[in-house]
């Protein structure tokens, strides 16, 4: 396969539930070897989109292609090359941890037993334990082992860390970075939907923010952190008549100001400097702050 061809290609995808547009004309492209973040609030359409990728739902219009294939027509070919960790993990309750992994492995052409043993040890899971006796965190860990051992080309994670404690979340992410990318990172693609963005910050190469089924912003993470900045200024006296047009948002409280900028931090800093602020600081927005500011971005776009 041509390495330049995208791993996931979604074009003008729409899916309605009755009158509700869950996904509305969404397009995005995930290239091989990238870690792609898919950010949105609850109900934004993230899971619906992922289900269309996996042929668990049929799109009303538009297309979703995985590895260049249509998942509706080539379901087995697509699914044998990816692994999926859903937000709600369910296993057969009567099976043990070891039995569940054996069962999952039976569907796979390839299964890395070394990674399996490593991860069971790392997560301190008891192979003889019944899955019905596992905690939510342990269930997610088991699902992650099941997703990583086949060493698939594409790992799809849907809200994988919500409801987990901070230590389990940290281990989860380290496992994705370490065990999953260990073979050939250039061919291991991750597509992760989440609203717990700060934890995935370092992992994300590129991201899309989705709101009410529509794409709000798609950018590379480094470019986004470069473009969206926050300026804090404090003056000796409350300032008035300061022309800050072009700023995304201005918050003022007495002598202090907080200004969000969209690629135009420099000229705004110049304007502020003329007023001799007591303090002037400029920092990048983290991906989470960009996500939180997306209401403002939407206004800027409109």
């Amino acid at each position: 396969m041509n390495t330049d061809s995208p791993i996931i290609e979604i074009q003008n995808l729409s899916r309605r539930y009755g009158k509700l547009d869950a996904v509305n004309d969404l397009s995005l492209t995930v290239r091989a070897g990238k870690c792609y973040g898919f950010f949105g609030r609850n109900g934004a359409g993230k899971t619906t989109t992922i289900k269309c990728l996996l042929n668990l739902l049929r799109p009303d219009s538009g297309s979703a292609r995985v590895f260049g294939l249509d998942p509706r027509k080539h379901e087995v070919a697509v699914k044998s090359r990816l692994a999926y960790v859903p937000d709600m993990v369910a296993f057969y309750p009567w099976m043990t941890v070891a039995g569940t992994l054996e069962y999952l492995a039976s569907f796979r052409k390839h299964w890395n037993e070394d990674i399996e043993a490593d991860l069971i040890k790392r997560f301190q899971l008891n192979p003889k334990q019944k899955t019905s006796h596992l905690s939510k965190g342990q269930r997610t860990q088991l699902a992650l082992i099941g997703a990583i051992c086949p060493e698939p080309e594409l790992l799809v994670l849907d809200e994988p860390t919500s409801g987990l404690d901070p230590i389990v979340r940290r281990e989860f992410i380290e496992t994705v970075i370490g065990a999953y990318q260990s073979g050939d990172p250039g061919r291991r693609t991750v597509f992760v939907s989440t609203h717990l963005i700060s934890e995935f910050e370092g992992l994300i190469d590129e991201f899309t923010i989705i709101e009410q089924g529509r794409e709000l912003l798609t950018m590379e993470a480094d470019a986004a952190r470069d473009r969206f900045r926050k300026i804090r200024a404090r003056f000796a006296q409350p300032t008035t008549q300061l022309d800050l047009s072009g700023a995304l948002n201005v918050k003022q409280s007495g002598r202090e100001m907080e200004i969000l900028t969209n690629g135009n931090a420099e000229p705004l800093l110049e304007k502020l400097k003329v007023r001799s602020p007591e303090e002037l600081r400029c920092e990048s927005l983290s991906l989470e702050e960009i996500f939180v500011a997306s209401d403002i971005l939407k206004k800027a776009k409109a």
Partner: protein
Amino acid sequence: MLLQIDFKSGKPVYLQLVDQIRYAAASGGLRTGEPLPSIRPLAEELRVNRNTVAKAYAELESQGVIETIPGKGCFLKESHSPFTKSARQKILTKEIDEAVVAAHHLQVDRDAFLALVKERLDSFERKVKEKSDND
């Protein structure tokens, strides 16, 4: 050598790693022939994408700071710079310009800025000297 990432600095993550490793190499935190951390454990520890660490190492290699020995890892090279003097000055000019712009925004005036540069240079040279004295 301990590395740290700041997502709020506005600098691409891989460049932060490049800068910190170059600083460690210049100040004796990392010595010639000493191995750099392997990509995977470093990526896990910093919780960044492996590609990011790999990109930083590739950049350092192209700058001639480190070398990769297949099967053994990455090592700090002998400290002769592969660049000509003018090329080195050009790289430094860019970095100085950044500091000059920052000083301008923070309203640090010319004398204070130059004094600070001098102070930092002295501190850097003291550190290098301490390291070599300890050897």
